[in-house]
């Protein structure tokens, strides 16, 4: 693996290998007092974040540190649109300074792919930690790891992704990864929060959450941003009110009862408790939300391992 830019087109065998490595790392570190492996000693990993993030950046940082890499965090508050250095120059600077891997989050779809082009000569690996409304592949990998753990396998499992699919890079990455690993994906959302052309993705679409829940093995709730509501400014008004959204698409305690007993509840965070997910549901035994965060570190360790340390890695 040279870069991890998207799950669209990612070889399912490679994805499975990453998930297997994550499992191994998890078991290796289990119960250890000193959670540090020497694998990436002397390697430099830079996180380059153009958007605010706590969990993703911290997760990558811990992953790098547990592998003994030198991790440098760069937060850029502005993109090249308004002021400051261009993305290309920043990328070349980081590569020249010795980065073996750049982990980028950026508001522009495709930014990670562009970065990989600019860094092709330098041989620097690029990980997409979220680009615009395109993809967030490590989130999908950690979701898959969590689902494998709970359900055994993804083959023929039915997974509902609920909420703001249109603006969600998490949804796009999960659609491709989960379906390539053999799962069926159903999107449940109001028509205004689905991308035009959604029927060309490997999914089925529903607007009726109650009808879908009894048949799914997992339900993934997406965060709904308040600015998408009516009154959220020009061009918004994707749905009339938080109340109506919550009634139609929120995962309430009552709806939790519609799920099969074995079903898993996921949320990529940060959660809006009471809006898309009831507090009691988030904290219920069905919820795997804290496991997702825990698995996130192992999955990101596995990604760094496959990029920088395994045979066929970039360096």
């Amino acid at each position, binding site marked *: 693996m040279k870069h991890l830019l998207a799950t669209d087109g990612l070889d399912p065998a490679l994805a499975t290998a990453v998930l297997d490595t994550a499992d191994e790392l998890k078991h290796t570190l289990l119960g250890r007092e000193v959670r540090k492996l020497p694998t990436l000693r002397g390697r430099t990993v830079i996180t380059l974040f153009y958007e605010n993030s706590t969990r993703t950046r911290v997760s990558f940082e811990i992953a790098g540190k547990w592998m003994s890499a030198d991790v440098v965090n760069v937060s850029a508050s502005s993109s*090249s649109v308004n002021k400051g250095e261009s993305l290309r120059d920043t990328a070349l600077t980081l590569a020249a300074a010795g980065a073996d891997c750049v982990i980028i989050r950026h508001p522009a779809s495709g930014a990670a792919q562009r970065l990989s082009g600019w860094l092709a000569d330098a041989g620097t690996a690029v990980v997409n930690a979220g680009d615009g409304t395109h993809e967030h592949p490590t989130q999908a990998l950690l979701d898959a790891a969590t689902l494998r753990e709970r359900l055994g396998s993804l083959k023929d499992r039915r997974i509902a992704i609920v909420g703001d699919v249109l603006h969600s890079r998490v949804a796009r990455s999960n659609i491709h990864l989960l379906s390539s690993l053999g799962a069926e994906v159903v999107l449940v959302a109001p028509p205004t929060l689905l991308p*035009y052309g959604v029927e060309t993705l490997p999914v089925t679409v529903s607007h009726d959450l109650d009808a879908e829940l009894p048949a799914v093995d997992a339900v993934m709730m997406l965060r709904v941003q308040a600015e998408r509501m009516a009154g959220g400014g020009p061009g918004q008004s994707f749905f009339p009110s938080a109340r109506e959204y919550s009634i139609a698409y929120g995962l309430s305690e009552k709806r939790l009862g519609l799920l099969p007993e074995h079903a898993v509840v996921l949320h990529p965070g940060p959660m809006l408790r009471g809006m898309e997910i009831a507090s009691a549901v988030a904290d219920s035994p069905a919820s795997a939300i804290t496991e997702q965060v825990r698995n996130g570190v192992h999955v990101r360790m596995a990604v760094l391992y496959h990029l920088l340390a395994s045979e066929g890695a970039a360096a």
Partner: protein
Amino acid sequence: MSTLIKSARPYGEDVADVLIEDGVITAIGAVDVPADAEIIEADGQVLLPGFVDLHTHLREPGREDTETIDSGSAAAALGGYTAVFAMANTDPVADNAVIVEHVWRRGQEVGLVDVHPVGAVTVGLKGERLAELGTMAKSQAQVKVFSDDGLCVADPLLMRRALEYSTALDVVIAQHAEEPRLTVGAQAHEGEQAARLGYPGWPAAAEESIVARDCLLALHAKARLHVCHVSTSGTADVLRWAKERGTNVSAEVTPHHLLLTDERLATYDPVNKVNPPLRTSSDAEKLRAALAEGVIDCVATDHAPHAVQDKDCEWSAARPGMLGLQTALSIVAETMVRTGLLDWRGVARVMSERPAEIGNLPDHGRPIAVGEPANLTLVDPDAEWTVRGAELASIAANTPYEGMRLPGVVTATLLRGRITARDGKIA
């Protein structure tokens, strides 16, 4: 001063010699050659009326780091053009007589192509109040076409007023059809590709709804409307309907919308970013058919030079637009002639005659006939060439056709009898 174009095929038809004296065609067929005549051996190449581009961005004044009237005129001459219309979105905006006269005068000084400035419809392209259309029309520049191109005159009342007001001046309002409320944050054609790749979508209906509205307004105002860069099959349908009910509407399509599609989005390379965006292959196919049918009147380049730093960046930060003047003929040859949709008479119609009529230029787009002004382009239809952005005459190099091998080479361009370009070089 005389020039003989020897063994040319006017409109790709029968071979003839064409004699030009003092800027006018004086003989066609069997010609007595004056002793001092300069001879262009056409050797069976296709002779066409000089091309007219209704839609060019020459970037002067304001962005002379990407194009000037000098460099843009050279690109135009090399592309076979004898007249171009320079869009108003310069800095400062061409919304007054001072700027349009400057552009007109610089074009005449350079002398490679007639540069006709397009005037802004609204002050500062702000879409708030009409610019002084009458003053610009009556200036030395004699502005014939007004457009806020790059931006849509979105306010329906203001568009109505512009159309009504234009009827007294015998000018045309050229609309960049884009309902801005439907394209907030838009980055690419709203369809399968954008859905998968996460581009905020630019729906076809944002263009089509404005074209439909403007056609209704133009008919009501008994005004002439020109639709810039038609990009969707739905717009072609609207135009067909509007023309059938007697609307005085004309339309252009760009070479890139005839050839390129949203399949190009996968690389996220902003060289493919343009407004309106590249559409689907089905749209491109229907635009070709509409051009052949005459529903779309002509080809216009929307030649839009941009600096490296405005293109070699992430997609959403990049400026929209691509070079077009030197590749237009070849793209038309590829998409329309090779496919059998147009013969060379048809090419003359869509690249010269109709744009000259729409832009109200009496000396361009004329028949190749004795007594007519010698604005001519000679094309080698069998030759092919490979596009290299760095070798184009424009200062900027943002061509989406880099490395592509294309048919049709412009071998000579004549402006009022004077050779402006020959064998790929400015003469």
